[in-house]
């Protein structure tokens, strides 16, 4: 669905660039941000349809940002959130689910998985 907006908060520039390329080619508008500290303000002003959030970020962890978001800060309590982490351990996944993540991808992931997850979260048919 062209024109839908993804906000990607990821501090690894090459990963962010690759995801932006994949999503842009699929018709998404992608905004990049690389810091956790001011993430809630960025979410509030960007008003994305889907948020892709890395778990380990400088300034503030993805889990804290997510919990903050779900408590109502940022003005998008029900925003679909895809969590990314460099540690695919079960405990990270459980912590992300407890914090209110809508979906979860462990690095390293396939490009197709990112695209499918974003489409699903946006209510499109995956694949």
């Amino acid at each position, binding site marked *: 669905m062209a024109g839908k907006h993804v906000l990607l908060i990821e501090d*690894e520039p*090459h*990963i962010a*660039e*690759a*995801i932006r*390329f*994949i999503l842009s*080619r699929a018709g998404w508008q992608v905004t990049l941000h690389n810091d956790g500290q001011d993430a809630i303000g960025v979410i509030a002003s960007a008003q994305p349809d889907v948020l892709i959030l890395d778990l*380990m970020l400088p300034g503030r962890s993805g889990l804290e940002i997510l919990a903050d978001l779900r408590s109502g800060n940022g003005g998008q309590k029900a925003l679909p959130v895809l969590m990314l982490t*460099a*540690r695919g351990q079960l405990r990270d996944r459980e912590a992300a689910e407890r914090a209110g993540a809508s979906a979860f991808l462990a*690095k*390293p*992931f*396939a*490009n197709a998985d990112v695209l499918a997850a974003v489409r699903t979260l946006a209510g499109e048919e995956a694949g």
Partner: protein
Amino acid sequence: MPRSALTGTRIRERRTALRMKQADLARDVGISPAYLNLIEHNRRRVGDALLEHLAQVLGVDPVALAEGAEGVLFDGLREAAAAAAMGEAEPELERIEEFVGRFPGWAALLAGRQARIGQLERVVESYAERMAQDPFLLTSLHEVLSAVTSLRSTAAILTDTDDIEPVWRTRFLTTIREESLRLSDTAEALVGYLDTQEEAETGLSSPLEEVEAWLAARNWHLPELEGPRPADGERLIAGVAELASSAGRRLALMHIAQAAQDARALPMEPLLAALAAEGPEPARIAARTGAPIPVVFRRMATLPPGIEGMPPVGLVVCDGSGTLTLRRPIAGFVLPRFGAACPLWPLYEALGRPMQPIRAVVDMAGRLPQRFLTYGFCQPSQPGGFDGPLLMQAMMLILPVPRDMAQEARPVGSSCRICPRAACPGRREPSILTEA
């Protein structure tokens, strides 16, 4: 007390070593020479009371007569039997003595292999602990995963996108080059780090471990510090291979200063006299000699080997943060190399109750749980004066449980990561082991 089939043989060996006639020993312990003869030829089992009496007359510990040197061998074989997995052949435990008697070489080999397996399991556990806690490893793994993710995504874009613009192609090729270099650098650093750690694993990885290895090589006793003119600390540690780092040498000098002070406060002669009179009971030794309990603990844990009536002793010391600052091991009581110890150790109970002596029997978790008698004590100090900080030092003396002691035992472990007690109320984190 568990009895080896060879108890009688040891009684005979000890008697003949003392050049004592069979009739004299029989008379001294109140049995007939014929009965003693049957015992010495392992044709009659010895009751606890008689064994104690024989040991007293022969001047040895009853345990030494009952179990002898092969006690360790039996322990190793029982451990090997206990390690047999479900569905494996079940060893005939009831014939263990016959096995040792008929095939001593095979028995020693099997027990030796079991000991080696135990060592390797401990190495694996220490690596698992390190993996879970080492910030360098965690950061490196994060770097590796990030680089691999970048490479995977970027390479897939380049191969899967037919109509990619030249500017993007160039950017992604640059990314691949940069991430490849990053992966290479991280891998190199990781290998270098693990090499260092492997070296440390076979040797020593912290100043405390250096000091403990040096003391272990000295049987934890420094005779040079006994007597009116103790040796100079610098001379004592000169050229000691185990004390490789300057921090290790500084720590060793601190230990020597404390040990010399303890030797002055409780010299060997009155200590041995008190031990002979009171047995290995630190509070009674302290009362008899007038030495403070911490000094008695440290002196008991650093006695020369082979003192009659003195069982093997372990000692752990911690500061107010609970960090272990000294670990003298005792067989069967597993001391953690990394991270915090079991919060249920009486050591930490003592830390919370300064100046109150604590005695507790504990069961150390393991494949073959072992029972120990522990004494805990915490001594506050204020080296900076009234305005200085209050410092705590707790210590725990660990001894084998006397066989006549019937006291409820407290279940404890080594540290949560390697403790199989799943339902422990003191558990901080999940174990890497399953409940035994």
